[in-house]
């Protein structure tokens, strides 16, 4: 069963990547869905899909911001820590009402993004290092603000976390809305064009007179804000604030979703649809392994293999 659950997905995806190039990730999602429909009991139920959608929402939202950062040939490693910071701020300021608390939490994400963005854009530090620094600092700050796990009792937040509209959970709706918004910004706005131009070639963008620094700062601010929103939603779903463990390894999941979705690490191209599918693919992969009683360690190893395979395939594609 072990081999079976891994092999069809991997082989199909590989072939699909070669045949369909950019649409490989959709093939992978389809393959995993088919596999689960056939082999996993109780998979094809509305309840299961609701659960999957709710679980994938925070990763998806973080991955959207990550896609923007990767589009500029950068990366944002601080997203997991920003989620933790956001959950700390949320539970700290919940006394002022859920809306105010959410605003403050998102503001925290914006400030964290501003710090990384300023380091990248104005000082010229490599994105990996700049966001590594804010990753360490933001997690520390989150723990300073809220040293341990705390229950969050708020009817408004609880409704946000577990409510639904016509059977579709709020979390999934928010994630979908944000994905549409980011896709629109990347494709149709001046900012999106500038972002892609900078990712393609920063010197060329500068020579063309684009506001390179401003765009870079805004990109990291967006990434921080999206991570903070994901932190709020995750808190609402768990009805608890856990700054120690919330968002750990989130940067990895988000980067995987983006890379699997066909956005090259070399920048200049952002595929939001692929990113959404990439996040769904990882979620399905995890579910498949868990539902077939494989321990979490296998999930981690499988995810590692998928990342390397996706980056490797992207390299092949780039060469042609």
């Amino acid at each position, binding site marked *: 069963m072990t081999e079976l659950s891994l092999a069809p997905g991997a082989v199909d995806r590989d072939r699909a990547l070669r045949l369909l190039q950019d649409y490989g990730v959709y093939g992978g999602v389809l393959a995993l869905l088919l596999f689960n429909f056939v082999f996993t009991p109780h998979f094809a139920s509305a309840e299961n899909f609701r659960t999957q959608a709710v679980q994938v929402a925070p990763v998806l939202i973080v991955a959207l911001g990550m896609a923007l950062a990767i589009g500029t040939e950068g990366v944002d490693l601080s997203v997991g820590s920003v989620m933790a910071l956001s959950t700390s701020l949320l539970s700290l300021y919940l006394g002022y009402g859920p809306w105010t608390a959410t605003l403050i939490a998102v503001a925290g994400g914006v400030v964290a993004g501003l710090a990384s963005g300023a380091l990248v854009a104005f000082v010229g530090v490599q994105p990996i290092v700049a966001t590594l620094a804010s990753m*360490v600092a933001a997690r520390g*700050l989150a723990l300073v603000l809220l040293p341990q796990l705390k229950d969050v009792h708020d009817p408004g937040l609880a409704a946000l976390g577990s409510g639904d509209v016509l059977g579709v959970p709020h979390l999934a709706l928010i994630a979908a809305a944000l994905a549409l918004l980011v896709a629109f910004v990347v494709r149709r706005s001046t900012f999106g064009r500038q972002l892609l131009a900078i990712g393609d070639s920063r010197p060329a963008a500068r020579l063309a007179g684009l506001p390179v620094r401003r765009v870079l700062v805004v990109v990291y601010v967006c990434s921080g804000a999206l991570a903070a929103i994901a932190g709020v939603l995750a808190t609402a779903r768990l009805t608890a604030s856990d700054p120690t463990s919330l968002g750990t390894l989130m940067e990895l999941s988000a980067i995987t979703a983006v890379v699997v979705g066909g956005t090259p690490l070399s920048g200049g191209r952002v595929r939001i649809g692929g990113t959404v599918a990439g996040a769904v693919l990882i979620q399905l992969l995890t579910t498949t392994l868990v539902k077939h009683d494989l321990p979490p360690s296998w999930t*981690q190893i499988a995810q590692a293999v998928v990342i390397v395979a996706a980056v490797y395939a992207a390299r092949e594609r780039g060469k042609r």
Partner: protein
Amino acid sequence: MTTDTGEATMRTETPAARAGDEPPGASRSERLSALAQQHGALVTLVIAVIVASLGFDTFLTGDNLKNMALSSAFLAVVALGMTFVVVTGGIDLSVGSLFALGGVLAAWGSQYGTAVALLLPLAVCGLVGLLNGLLIARSGLAPFIVTLAAMLGARGVLLALTDEGSRTYLVDKDTFFAGLGQDSLLGVGVPVWITLVLFVLGAVVLRRTRFGQYVYAVGGNEDAAALMGAPVARTKVAVYTLSALCAGLAGALNAAWLLSGVTILGSGMELEAISAVVIGGTLLTGGFGFISGSLVGVALLKVIQNVINQIGSLDSAYQQVVSGAFLAVVVVAQTWLGRRRRVL
């Protein structure tokens, strides 16, 4: 000097600057910024030690220093391997997981004798490092993504080995292997001696051997190094293997010290190691750096940590805030110094 070629020329020249013989015509401020780059961490360390010993009576006691040296030893070994990787312009995020994996493997292997306890983690971690290196050097994948995947994969292997992290293998206290972590020589713990020996070896290899020169050349400018006839791919594979071996060895020594293979160790260690290397003056862009700096960087991090621990009222989480802010300040200073040197 803003064009790419200009930058590339300057970067290939940095190995010369590292050796201390500045090109003729180097202005005073140029030399000053080079000095600040090389010895800034050491000066900061001296200041930090003076401030700490004035502020806390307990800081400059033999026991405190001995404990600090012992607890820094493991991070220092990891940072040693990381220095080689960073000098080639790469990054290795898998060291924290490999550190934990090395510890677990060593603790499990210690029941079969010291040789197994040391060789098993080295073999497994070396293999992971080799795989990292091959993917990075031969397939041209980005180092951070490959080693990030290795970090996840190694943690997964560790969990699979320990019943999802629920089982802790113990090391028998009376074995020679346990002695490697527990004993002291001339009042100083054996791990500290091993670390010092490894650093001397590392410094000699990086500065005085052909391999070391290749490491600088690859980091300075990969294309130029390839044209010069340096074995770029082989050098890269070697540094990632070396880094993984260092992480595995550090994990094994740590297991001998703790007398068990603790599964939750090592998360965030890659950040500490990279911070130490960067604080020590090694440039993340590659081609410039020194082994001794990384040792100073580790010492500086541990002194800061010790001071924060001594201020009882401060939460230990402040440590992370301070480390992150400190890393940012150092990187900003380095970028500024580097730019100054390039412009002038």
